[in-house]
């Protein structure tokens, strides 16, 4: 079995001799021509016909992609998924996105450059380039200039390659055997690596633990804790009463919750429900009714809620003739102001929700007292 060799090295004494040899050796077309020199030689890239590295283009594409990723991510977070007004700025403020776009662009670009160079273009991990174990390597790192004809296939003819190099003026020839390509990811290697990482984590964790235990005053980051701020449920010397939490100023009403009172119930009888009878309005009313009313008035509004049995209270039966005759305004008034044992719902239901509940109560009443003509309405 003939041993296939990895490459044939031709050793030259001067860079000029190397440069002159390159075109001749390339013309022989016996394999890939590669040069190994102690320092960069101007013009050798062109002489070897090396193509431009694709790394620059990869970095550009990934950098742009990084910037776009960061923009899309921030746009989705701050403008679509969870828009919060911060500092009076619009949810979609490109100015605020730029620093992070810049950082992520740099991150993508540097990782592409580093990993692309090592893994894609240099084909690492790869322990020990064959040339490193040649006899010529001591010369390459000092004062020798080496031209290598590297095998491209099994059919590599090392004798012809040696002849070509010699013909081009090489003073010495060395044939490199094929490198040992046995897999290095053996179980032994993996075990030792994993063990090393585990030990390092253990030691670092122990050091961290003991540092914090023995020097508790050296907390790593305390700046955020020591702010002069008010905390919920905590005391504070800022206010006279010593509480961190304060009651809202008297008369404070949240947006959308006005009005809070509408005179007497009789006066409210003339109020007209401002909302249209649409599917959406009924859905809002149904949800609000279920949350705020159903527990006492019952799911059907007949006063048979789950609390009625437990406490013996007697909430209004909204199906009674008295309440079916009520104008919308009077029901609305009861929701806003409360009636008898019923507390005011003004703080919990917005103006729109209150009127939606009125519509929903009307629907419940109609449902329990349906007429024949209700069945005739067919509109697919």
């Amino acid at each position, binding site marked *: 079995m003939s041993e296939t060799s990895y490459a044939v090295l031709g050793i030259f004494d001067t860079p000029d001799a190397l440069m002159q040899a390159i075109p001749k050796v390339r013309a022989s077309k016996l394999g890939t021509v590669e040069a190994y020199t102690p320092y960069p030689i*101007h013009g050798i890239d062109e002489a070897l016909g090396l193509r*431009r590295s694709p790394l*620059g283009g990869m970095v*550009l594409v990934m950098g742009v992609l990084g910037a776009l990723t960061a923009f899309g991510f921030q746009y989705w977070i701050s403008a679509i998924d969870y828009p919060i007004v911060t*500092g*009076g*700025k619009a949810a979609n403020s490109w*100015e*605020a996105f*730029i*620093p992070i776009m810049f950082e992520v662009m740099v991150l993508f670009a540097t990782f592409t450059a580093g990993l692309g160079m090592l893994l894609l273009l240099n084909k690492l991990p790869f322990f020990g380039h064959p040339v490193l174990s040649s006899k010529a390597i001591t010369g390459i790192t000092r004062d020798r200039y080496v031209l290598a004809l590297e095998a491209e296939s099994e059919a590599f003819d090392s004798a012809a390659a040696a002849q070509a190099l010699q013909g081009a003026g090489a003073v010495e020839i060395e044939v490199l055997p094929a490198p040992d390509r046995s897999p290095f990811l053996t179980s032994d290697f993996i075990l030792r690596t994993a063990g090393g990482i585990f030990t390092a984590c253990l030691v670092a964790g122990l050091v961290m633990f003991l540092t914090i235990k023995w020097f508790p005053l050296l907390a790593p980051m305390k700046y955020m804790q020591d702010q002069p701020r008010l905390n919920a449920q905590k005391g504070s010397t800022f206010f006279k009463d010593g509480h961190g939490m304060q009651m809202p100023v008297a008369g404070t009403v949240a947006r959308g919750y006005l009005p809070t009172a509408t005179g007497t119930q009789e006066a409210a009888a003339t109020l007209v429900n401002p909302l249209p009878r649409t599917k959406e309005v009924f859905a809002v009313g149904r949800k609000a009714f279920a949350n705020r009313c159903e527990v006492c008035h019952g799911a059907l509004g007949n006063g048979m809620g789950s609390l009625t049995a437990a406490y013996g209270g007697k909430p209004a039966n909204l199906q009674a003739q008295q309440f079916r005759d009520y104008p919308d305004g009077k029901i609305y008034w009861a929701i806003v102001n409360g009636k008898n044992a019923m507390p005011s719902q003004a703080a919990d239901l917005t103006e729109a929700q209150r009127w939606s509940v009125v519509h929903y109560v009307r629907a419940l009443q109609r449902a329990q007292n349906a007429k024949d003509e209700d069945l005739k309405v067919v509109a697919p």
Partner: protein
Amino acid sequence: MKQNKQISTLLWGAVVLGALGVFGSYVAAGPERFWANWVLWFVLLFTLGLGSLFIVALEHLVNAKWSVPIRRIPERVSTLLLPAIPVGLIALGAIPVLYPGARPEAAHHPILAGKAFWLSLPFFSVRTLIALGLCILGLWVLVGGSLKQDTTKDPAFNFRARKFAPAFMAIFALVITLVAFDWISGLTPEWYSDIFGVYVFAGAFLSGLAATVLAVLHLQDQDRLEGVRGDHLYNLGAFLFAFTVFWSYIGFAQYMLMWYANFPDEVIYYKVRLVGAWRVITIALAALHFVLPFFALVTREAKKDPKRLRRVAYLMLGAHVLDVYWLIFPVLGTKPHFSWPELSFALFFLGGILLWIRGAMQKGEDMPVGDPFLREGLEFRL
């Protein structure tokens, strides 16, 4: 030769025609507009000269060898600081007209009254004179010494320049900050930004670089500067490329902090530049000063391609004019002024600058032949 003469005549014609327009604009368009134009061109002349001098000092500071063959070019461009002296002295006339801090009303302004001493006409003028004087000192040591070295071939100049360069960097920082704060941000004295001097520096350096690139390419067209190759051009192109990013970084950092904080006295500066026609100019500035040159120079080949470099350098100089226009002209009102007074000023000053540079390009040898590192610089390869 004959063509040279024709160009000279043309430029002189432009200067005379421009001068007529300049005088006319004082009478017809009013002193405010006249002085705004004058300050614009003073700042342009000054930044162009000082930016070039900075390139020269930078080369001495870091002991650069590659740039020795082209060092004479920024040295010649930096002599524009000499005509900047009379222009600057005349510009002092703008202070009582344009600069609110030096006007009598300032005494009743709660903020300006506190800064009255600094902003007043006498101290303003003194600072300008000091700035111009320091520039002349730098010019004398770095450019004068280099020209003298052509005949004496005395390497002692290199040591002197290398020792002087760090001191000049401090002087440069002081001078460009003084000019930026006094002449540009002094137009709106309630507004201030710590980084403003750096912003103006970035523009000045870019304009000096662009002028250097253009002059190098122009001399190469005339078969002068033999030995200057793509490798040298590549370094100049890389500088241009890098500093477009630096300029936009500083400009955007300044804008973003003010936009975030949203203090009325700070944000008003950008508010006037982000409504109406000024908004268009702001966007154009970002495109012409950053986006276009950045992508034009992004590849390796582009940085040493003379054709592309020439276009980008012209673009960069134009963008620098637009930048300074954008900084100064909003003081005249919410609408950008651009018509015959501006064109006359451009004719007058551009004609004058080109005439001066044409003269300066004949000064001394094309390369610093007395510099012992010239050979090493010529052999420079990437």
